[in-house]
């Protein structure tokens, strides 16, 4: 069977006509398979949702109990059959609960990576390569410039600055799902055991991570009761990136603006956002991880989704691997 007959990009997202389901659709559909809980991949309003238990929990936290008609939890590694199409979920290493989804019928297997990364993350299961005919990869950081540095060295920068500027509040912008918890876990691993203050938007997701056995240490709300006088000097405060520009950040003593994102590799990006201390930590693959993964899986064909498709397609061409961009719309760049 030609792979396009098994799975193709439709206006609502990647569609499998034989199984009659979508993967990460951007509009409400009858049956959706969801790779992970980030809001551009996991939207509310579908009829039936198949996802890992963690992803379903995260969607419930974000959208409330009625986020879909029925939810069906799928274990990582489990196989199930939908209208004769074999479907499997495999760890993607992106955030807690994230999965790649494999789709097979006859002799043809396609793997949809969703968002993924290859390096160790204390807050989620690591990526597992799955042999396939077509590998659908993301390309968020699909340019040869992206080489994410060691994440421990990056969090050390934050601790160094805290020692150097003990009178300033270290306000870290980090995505509410995944990045924030990973930064906290990395800080704990480096021996930072002071309470970390968090923005209200992070509270329920952090509680959820803790309930799943991921230790984040003592977290306190970065909010003040009316009679409280606390200016947070010398502390680490974590909030969603958008909160920086918000009046929320005014309560902090001489704040130093920090942003934890893969984009912080580019100096001009940091400068434009007024970031004083960029922490280059990403939940996506960098360029060597993308190309090494393709080499390792050795699929017959590579389809490239959201991100900088053209460079990765060009790389595949040079290596003699058939590749094409899928031009899916509706997925955000990380942290923008």
């Amino acid at each position, binding site marked *: 069977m030609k792979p396009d007959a098994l799975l193709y990009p439709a206006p609502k997202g990647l569609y499998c006509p034989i199984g009659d389901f979508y993967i990460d659709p951007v509009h409400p559909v009858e049956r959706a398979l969801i790779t992970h809980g980030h809001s551009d991949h996991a939207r509310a309003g579908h009829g039936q949702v198949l996802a890992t238990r963690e992803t379903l929990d995260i969607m419930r936290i974000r959208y409330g109990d009625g986020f879909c008609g029925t939810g069906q939890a799928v274990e990582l590694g489990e196989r199930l059959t939908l209208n004769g199409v074999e479907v499997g979920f495999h760890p993607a290493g992106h955030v807690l609960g994230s999965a790649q989804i494999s789709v097979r019928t006859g002799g043809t297997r396609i793997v949809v990576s969703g968002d993924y990364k290859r390096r160790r993350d204390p807050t989620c299961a690591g990526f597992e390569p799955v042999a396939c005919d077509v590998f659908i990869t993301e390309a968020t950081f699909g340019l040869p410039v992206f080489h994410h540095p060691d994440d421990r060295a990056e969090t050390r920068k934050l601790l160094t600055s805290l020692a150097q*500027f003990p009178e300033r509040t270290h306000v870290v912008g980090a995505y509410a799902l995944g990045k924030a918890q990973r930064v906290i876990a990395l800080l704990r691993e480096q021996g930072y055991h002071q309470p970390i203050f968090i923005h209200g938007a992070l509270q329920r997701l952090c509680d959820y991570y803790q309930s799943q056995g991921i230790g984040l240490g003592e977290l306190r709300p970065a909010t003040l009761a009316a009679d409280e006088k606390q200016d947070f000097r010398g502390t680490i405060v974590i909030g969603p990136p958008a909160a920086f520009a918000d009046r929320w950040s005014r309560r902090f003593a001489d704040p130093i*603006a920090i942003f934890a994102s893969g984009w912080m590799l*580019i*100096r001009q990006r940091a400068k434009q956002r007024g970031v004083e201390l960029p922490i280059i930590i990403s939940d996506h693959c960098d360029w060597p991880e993308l190309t090494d993964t393709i080499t390792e899986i050795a699929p017959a064909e590579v389809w490239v989704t959201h991100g900088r498709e053209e460079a990765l397609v*060009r790389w595949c061409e040079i290596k003699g691997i058939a590749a094409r961009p899928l031009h899916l719309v509706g997925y955000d760049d990380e942290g923008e």
Partner: protein
Amino acid sequence: MRAFAELLDRLVLSPQRNAKIRLLVDYFRTAPDPDRGYALAAIAGTLSLNTVKPAMIRDLLLERMDAVLFQYSYDYVGDLAETVSLVWEPPAGSVHSDIPLGEAIERLQKTGRADVRSVVRDMLDHLDTSARFAFLKLVTGGLRIGVSAKLAKQALADMGGKDVAEIETLWHGLSPPYLPLFRWLSGEAEKPALSTPAVFHSVMLANPVGEGDLDALDPRDFAAEWKWDGIRVQLANIGGVRRLYSRSGDEISGAFPDVLEAADFTGVIDGELLVGGTARTNRATRTFADLQQRLNRKTVSSKLLEAYPAFIRAYDILFSGEADVRPQGFLERRAMLADLVENASPQHFDLSPLVPFSSWEELDRLRADPPDPVIEGIMLKRLDSPYTPGRVKGPWFKWKRAPFNIDAVLMYAQRGHGKRSSYYSDFTFGVWAAVDGTETLVPVGKAYFGFTDAELEILDRFVRDNTTERFGPVRAVRAEPDFGFVVEVAFEGINRSTRHKSGVAMRFPRIARLRQDKLPRDADRLETLQAMIEARENT
């Protein structure tokens, strides 16, 4: 090189002066010699290195990278050194072994033209990403990190617990990698002895006249001089060496060969660098805009020398012959200075005249209406004051002429940095003009200070509540004849400008008052600003 690269990365993104100083001090304390000395030289602009053309860096990269992938990368990043530092892939098996900054620079200085290519390639293979970037910026000669030599000197002073004046005096007698300087600052050796005599001596600065400052002072104890709108300089001719320094101690000799050549006396004087004619030749002093034609140049053409002749209006004398006369009183020094100027070239030197006055009220009137458009105020100097480096309160005051004021309308706002990153604190304002027959607001300037914290809250709220459009970090706000925000803008001077669309450029504009009592239709017109320029030109 890694520590230096980290320092650069932090400095570029730190807007606060104190934060920059602390980063520099911590680096100078922990980095070894000669690395820290070369880092200092790179930051202060005293490092001499045969630079490498960007085209060569690109060639080196394309030896091993696909041109299309490179182009995608370069288009995305926009800076060649940064792109190359990020995409460079060392050959398999090579190890990052951090090359010390000093070793890298000394190796480059020793390398002949023919070998540069292979040396640069080899260094790129051994450095990590951040160090590669620092290295490429160094060899292509464009550090641009927002740190002045002055700030670096302040950090050195803080590091050693010294006065910055001491560093400034030593500065031009020392050279990279500054080993004796750092040994002295870390308490391991005596203060270095100077080998070059024509060094810079920190200048004496004045405090602005504040409310009530003059009440308790007797006018008879002070001399008054005009404050000229040029740049403050120090000219030294000692031991056969002639040097011209800006007031922060940067050497600017290269741009003013005419003045240096005429300085055939021995000594060190303090004065205002101006263009035009001296009082002794009876020709007019020209504006700051004319002086700017001569500034920031390494060399100067004979055409420029003729069109914009420079001279020094002498204020003070620090060394008469080889003798240090700074401890003597102002009047004694002035007598020596008058003598020196009298015998110097009349085209290149004149003496700043004293302004006779008997009361502060009389001086205030003179200040408000000075006899020359290139005067920006009055200087007051205690007759018995010695020449003391730095800004000591008491002996010298500056009393500027009243600023210009206009009412303008807020048009755009941009978020600030650091402490102000959650505030819209950088404002573009405009005045009315008829454009193709329609009354339109044209932007005439930008201001980001002058207001109080409470006023900033009000401005910020207005911007957030009345945004009409966003362009990245900039917001356009409502500015209509009957709805908008009027501010009173104060500024020190105004000139014609071909660079600004409005045709005018203000000096030091700031927001003096919020005029919530006014409607945008009551704001000033462009013609008012143009008239200010004409008035200035016609005096």
